[in-house]
């Protein structure tokens, strides 16, 4: 993305140190206007600290942040009214009801109209499916309901940008689907969304862009198709003559050629499937089955963040 593309969020060399520990290390985040940006990385990779800095809660040790074109944290109060946020889990007063908690946040908002507060609170609760439980105390909410109330708080007034930190945490599969659906419908209204997760599978379907964090660094960023294309496709064919097939494939420049029984696999690299089949047939290899499997985003993600999802040190 070039420097003059309109960006909802842009950071330059953003760095945060706690003592001598670099939690966020010179990252250049670029969230385009209108994108649904999946902010991925294992727990402890620096996602939440980055989000805290985007919202003016923590001061960067170095670097610059612009949110909706406004420098943060210096002018954070000027822009945060246009940003809805869920940061590191929901947090509300346990003795108040869901509705009273939202009323409290709305009362704190100098830009919101007190006359429409009740309607807006109702609409936000309805939108996240909490309307039935609006008069129950937050204390008795389940984890999923708490998470929903957190999202509702971000929807009290119209927003241009939503920053949702692990919004699916603690939700069951049904709840996770609903949150995905909600994100999709908000994006359809033109709201830019930054959504963080340590699980690619939970947000992959709704994202247009991805940024991947590992050990405080942004190791990959871009439109989701671009990242997917980074993965290496695999060729797979079944033949009565695997040794000969292997020779032909190597001759074409394919890598990682291997076979078990009659099944031969190789990394496709830049090879066109049509050319491969023609070469095989031309080389006298009888092809019984042939296929190319594109790399899944999961493969790319795991390649970037390391196997498994251990907490980053």
């Amino acid at each position, binding site marked *: 993305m070039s420097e003059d593309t309109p960006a909802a969020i842009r950071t330059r060399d953003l760095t945060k140190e706690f003592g001598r520990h670099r939690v966020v290390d010179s990252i250049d985040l670029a969230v385009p206007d209108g994108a649904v940006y999946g902010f991925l990385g294992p727990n402890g990779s620096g996602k939440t600290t980055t989000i805290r800095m985007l919202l003016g809660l923590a001061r960067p040790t170095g670097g610059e942040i612009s949110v909706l074109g406004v420098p943060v944290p210096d002018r954070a*109060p000027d822009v945060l009214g246009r940003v809805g946020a869920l940061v590191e889990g929901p947090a509300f007063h346990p003795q108040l009801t869901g509705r009273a908690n939202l009323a409290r946040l709305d009362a704190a908002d100098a830009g919101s109209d007190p006359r429409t507060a009740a309607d807006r609170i109702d609409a936000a609760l309805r939108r996240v499916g909490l309307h039935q439980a609006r008069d129950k105390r937050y204390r008795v909410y389940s984890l999923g309901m708490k998470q929903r109330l957190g999202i509702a708080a971000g929807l009290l007034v119209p927003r241009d940008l939503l920053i949702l930190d692990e919004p699916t945490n603690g939700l069951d599969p049904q709840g996770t689907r609903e949150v995905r659906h909600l994100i999709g419908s908000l994006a359809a209204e033109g709201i830019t969304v930054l959504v963080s997760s340590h699980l690619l599978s939970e947000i992959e379907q709704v994202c247009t862009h991805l940024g991947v964090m590992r050990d405080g660094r942004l190791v990959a960023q871009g439109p989701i198709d671009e990242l997917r294309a980074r993965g290496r496709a695999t060729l797979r064919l079944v033949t009565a003559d695997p040794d000969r097939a292997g020779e032909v494939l190597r001759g074409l420049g394919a890598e990682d050629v291997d076979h078990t029984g009659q099944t031969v696999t190789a990394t496709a690299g830049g090879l066109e499937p049509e050319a491969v089949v023609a070469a095989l047939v031309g080389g006298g290899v009888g092809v019984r089955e042939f296929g190319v499997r594109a790399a899944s985003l999961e493969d790319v993600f795991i390649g970037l963040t390391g196997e498994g999802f251990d907490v980053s040190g």
Partner: protein
Amino acid sequence: MSAAEAAPRAGLGAWWRLLGSELRLTLGRRRNQFGLLVLAALPVMIAVTIRISGAGGGHGPDFFSAITSNGIFVALAAISVELTLFLPLAIAVLAGDAIAGEAGLGTLRYLLTVPVPRTRLLLTKYAALAIGALEGVVVVAAAGVVAGGLAFGLPPMTTLSGTTIPMVEATGRLVLAVLYVSAGLAALAAVGLFISTLTEQPIVAMVATTGVAALMWILDSIPQLGWLHPWLLVHHWLAFGDLFRDPVFTDGIVRGLWLALGYIVVFLIAARTVFVHRDVTS
């Protein structure tokens, strides 16, 4: 409607709205309601005990010996007794909740991203604390007047100087006493608010603020530290009794007000300095 069109208007109304929300939050807490009840119970206890067993001449502060002559002295006695522990404790609890409590719950990060500018939040919290101090003292005084009135009646008041003033004037002086004591407690609240910005654990802030008040009382009771006494907040608190002399003796009260103002300014600036620069990591 896009968010950009909703122009923010942080007028006076917005301040009032947040302050109202603060007061509802504080007054709505069971624990705080119970606290007010405890504050109100003490003057009732004093009135009942003395009514039953008599004033028991000579011991205790001036107010106690005068109680049987006029119910209003129950209010004054209760205020002077509660200033040593209960009222400072109440302030400490509210101050602990103010910033450290919100930080501990995590609600602080959501208030700040609403957004509420940090200075505005701090000043609103402080205003709520000062109002809380006034509420506490009013409850003690009102409970004292009611309980004392029922037990000993409310005839024209004999001042500490021996002259007599009509009930209306006595009530006016009681109101002034309540305001003076509240100002002193509001100064303690500024100290408490500062401490509250330093931690994410409300209980730590509460203990520390109560500790500050207790320490000041102790230092105030050591005669060898006479040079320090004028600088101790609590040293001036009991000067409200001077309002019930004839003529009113104002030196102590004026000095107490100046010192309270000094504490308020110094500790609010300190609290703001810490709070504005602090990373909110809870």
